[in-house]
């Protein structure tokens, strides 16, 4: 099985986040928005696990896909050194992506921080007529991919924690305002856990279905080792479910965010 692909482009989006364009017929053709890949960093510094990263956007004609990665620790630091022309070991596409139902006519994608990445291809692929995006960043210097998002949706709202760009405050505040003005019939969330917890509650308040993309530390990335679990409902009970295989996208009715 081949998991080695060529990087066509590597560029920084801001000080700590970079974008890689990777050549892969297989991944670009098969990938659905919300699915992930797992990337081998190399053994430098004893880093042995692959890193889970969302597919940010795909070009099915050219057979390429983009991933955007924020430097957090050892593994992402190693990945930041990859250059155009290098080969990189990527497994995917993995997991379950967002649902693209034609019955949903008005959708809103809500993302915070690195959670915005999988929403780009979602907005590009979703058949809805009215697509809005609400993106949250820490401050002005963190705002990235603004133009790409603007093109992929009908209306884009940006907020920053400190108000240095767009609205001041949280994406969930913006969401309520937008929903009050023009309700959507489907919501998609990806971002920090507290934001998604609140998002699921807001969706319930407005009686609107939603999906959330969960994050969890991973081992195998394919469903075999059960280290990457989150809580989901099971009849009258709950169970731990693999984020890598049954997620990362879960229905708002199914997920339990403690």
């Amino acid at each position, binding site marked *: *099985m081949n998991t080695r692909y060529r990087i066509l482009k590597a560029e920084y989006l801001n000080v700590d986040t970079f974008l890689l364009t990777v050549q892969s017929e297989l991944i670009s053709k098969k990938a659905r928005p919300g699915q992930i890949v797992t990337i081998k960093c190399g053994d430098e510094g*004893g880093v*042995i696990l692959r890193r889970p990263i969302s597919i940010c956007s795909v070009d099915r004609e050219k057979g390429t896909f983009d991933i955007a990665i924020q430097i957090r620790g050892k593994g992402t630091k190693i990945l930041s050194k990859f250059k155009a022309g290098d080969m990189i070991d990527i497994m995917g596409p993995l997991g379950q992506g967002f649902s693209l139902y034609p019955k949903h006519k008005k959708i809103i994608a809500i993302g915070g921080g690195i959670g915005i990445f999988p929403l780009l291809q979602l907005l590009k692929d979703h058949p809805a007529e009215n697509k809005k995006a609400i993106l949250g960043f820490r401050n002005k210097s963190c705002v990235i991919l603004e133009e790409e998002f603007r093109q992929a949706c009908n209306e884009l709202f940006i907020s920053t924690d400190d108000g240095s760009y767009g609205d001041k405050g949280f994406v969930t505040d913006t969401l309520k305002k937008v929903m009050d003005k023009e309700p959507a019939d489907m919501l998609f969330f990806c971002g920090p856990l507290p934001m998604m917890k609140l998002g699921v509650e807001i969706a319930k308040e407005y009686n609107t279905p939603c999906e959330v993309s969960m994050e969890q*530390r991973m*081992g195998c990335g394919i469903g*075999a080792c*059960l280290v990457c679990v989150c809580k989901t409902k099971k009849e009258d009970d709950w169970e731990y479910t693999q984020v890598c295989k049954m997620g990362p996208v879960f229905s708002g009715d199914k997920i339990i965010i403690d």
Partner: protein
Amino acid sequence: MRENINLKVNIGGLELKNPVIAASGCFGFGREYSRFFDIKRLGGIAVRGLTLQPQKGNPPPRIAETPSGILNSVGLQNPGVHTFIEKEIPFLRKIDTTIIANVSGNTIEEYESMAEILSNADVDAIELNLSCPNVQEGCLRFGSSAQKVESVVSRVKNYAKKPLLVKLTPNVTDITEIAKAAEEAGADSVSLINTILGMAINAKTRRPILGSITGGLSGPAVKPIALRMVYEVSRAVKIPVIGMGGICNATDAIEFLLAGASAVMIGTAGFANPMVWVETIEGIEDYMAENSINSVTELIGGLIV
């Protein structure tokens, strides 16, 4: 497979077509990895750790990466032995490889029941996990005293109608004492090492990384310890030893064989490289061809000291 190269090994009555087995807990019930390679190439599959009743497992996060290793605290999440038999064996049995049921219990009676149930099910061998560090009650307590190992194994032996592997914990003072107790009580082979108890802390948040605070270390970081223990145990007992702990390639596997293991298991390395099991089998063949070795059994215990 190459001609004139015999990879077959016999592990206390359990025939394996080659000495490379998928380690318990790292390979699920085989379904996931079967998408990546033809899993019938494996010498065997040790399935995810089973308990008598379904088990929810520990709260996440259940994994932390440490230099060249991982800590895990899955806590034996599994659907229970009955669901395993009903839902997973039919899939596994279609694959021409050896199936090893890995079991854990809270009491000796639970171990006995599982041995009895699995002896009547279509599996090839039973591996007693006396050493899982990830559950409060049960196995670690059994696995850490020679006397307890002796009593569990001898009682389970009355019910086990299949080859019985006893998996040993490294979290003990003298692993050879435990191995000898298992042998005396009737174990057909011993497998080692299970994970080494450890911990990871996030200094920024001042919290443990794992949801259950401590977990079990595996991967390359544990290999020197595992090799030493396999070496010691294989000299202390007459029954075959299955070696594991940090194996990432054929060279690692051959080192374990030389140290005295009759077969090896690979777990963690598969997370980074799903082809590791196949590559290891092929690499052992290459090594044998290069060194004019016909039977892999010639390598077992072949360490020159």
